[in-house]
């Protein structure tokens, strides 16, 4: 998200807001599948894959 600049205050103020990110959703899906890996190795593998992808995206600010 672009930092909005408020124009109608006495002087312009730059407001820094965090960028949207899909990483939290992918990390959450990864954690969920990893834990359900108790029931199936396929779910475990999928979970670790998603978790690694999500953490990577998070770390690199995607």
């Amino acid at each position, binding site marked *: 998200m672009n930092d*909005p600049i408020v124009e*109608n*205050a006495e002087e312009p103020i730059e407001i820094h807001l*965090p960028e*949207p*990110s*899909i990483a939290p959703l992918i990390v959450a899906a990864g*954690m969920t599948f990893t834990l359900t890996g108790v*029931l199936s190795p396929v779910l475990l593998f999928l979970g670790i894959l998603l978790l690694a992808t999500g953490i990577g995206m998070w770390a690199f600010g995607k």
Partner: protein
Amino acid sequence: MTTTAPPYPDVGHEAEPRGLISWLTTVDHKRIGIMYLVTGIAFFAIGGILALLIRAELALPGQQFVSAQAYNRLFGMHGTTMIFLFAIPVLVGVGNYIIPLQIGARDMAFPRLNALSYWLLLFGGLVLYASWFVPEGAPAIGWTGYPPLTNAEYSPYAGVDLWAISIIITGASSTMGAVNFITTILNMRAPGMTLFKMPLFTWSVLITAFMILIATPMLSGGLAMQLADRNLGTSFFVAGEGDPVLWQHLFWFYSHPAVYIMILPAMGVISEVLPVFSRKPIFGYNAITWSTIAIGVLGFATWAHHMFTTGLPPLLEAFFILSTMTIAVPTGVKIFNWIFTMIGGSLRFTTAMMFAIGFISMFVIGGISGVFQAILPIDRQVHDTYWVVAHLHYVLFGGMVFGVFSGIHYWFPKVTGYMLSEKWGKLTFWTLFLGFNLTFFPMHILGLLGMPRRYFDYPASRGWTEYNIASTIGAFLIALGVMFFLFNVFLAFRRKEVAGDDPWEANTLEWATTSPPPVYNFARIPEVTSDRPLWDARQKLREAQGHAD
């Protein structure tokens, strides 16, 4: 609706991103708060439907339309859904939306962690409901999941594993949310907002967050041990090798504080709503704050009163009787302060206020029946009867749910920019109030008559039928009340009655910005000089206008 313009900079709306992707990728605390609320209310509806099925089965003696095992699944899923997927998340949702606004911050301290907390909650809920689709279906173990019933020997199906995993996931969600709330509240308050100038709702969320942080790992650890017993051949909770009662300690070390985790934010809502609609300051701000802290501490010293019938040593029994009675003191302090807030006030009986008063009256009934149960001989008599079901619903439905409804009616104009209909709001309140009492009051009598909880049937000869019929009618009235509420929300978006920034002439900072607030909340972070900054600001405005006149 008249609106007093607050003397803080009011800037126009930034263009909010739209579309599904914007919701999937959002890290804005307001959107995440809305997602929590919608998810929590959806699970409330699902848990409510399960409750209706339970009540329909129990209306008359004999099997009506579900088998005993299906009934076991229904009440287990009802309890788990209402506690872990509705009660805790919906208050996290309200907190998520309101706390940064109330303390004059632009977002939570860790926005991505905030989004992760929400998605974990949703996925935790989906995992729980996935258990309906595995062989042998959803877990039939109640919401307490006591071993040996949960051991692989007696429940050898994946539904129990999914139940445990789902609670571990929602626990992780709660823990991350708690870290975020604590960091946000301690570090991001507006200039001048010292701890004892914080709004009482913020105080209640802060204490709740500390409780979540301390209590949740106990439950998650216990559930991991259950999973290990079931899948790895360990014997933490296997009688003879381990100890099934150990689970009860771990479970109740979380689940009794969880009652306060659910009720404290609702108490915070009441502490915001009552002074606004009594048009006077809260009575005893410091007393309410310290009683919140006291409940947060004492809440960890009462868990074993759930286990009196397991055979605790007499010294421990005495300790837990005393600690349970002691916790009624700070709770009573709050109740007296709320009553004194109303006394002498210029009361406005809005829907939010009605729910707040409903909260106090119903919570007092639930609290008093709780003190009864703290007395060991009474506890032994009523343990595992419908008395306990009545007590917990008076605390959690009459208390927490009424608090949530009060908060939703109070903050709905801020979140959406539109007013709810007061007419439909009051209809919602009275329907829920009557339905609630009709459902749960007879359960006290059923409990005293000896009707055990968790049974799917009862003999006609016991004289319990009339009370059960009344209870079932009440449950359907509650469902009608919830439908009135949903219709009111639908109506608000259709009528589009503009709320203005501060329709209630409220006290706290969230009302100083537009409704709904812009993405950045405040163009300039306001400075605070008291615990009710908007009241002060209005007073200054009035004085200035008086001088000008």
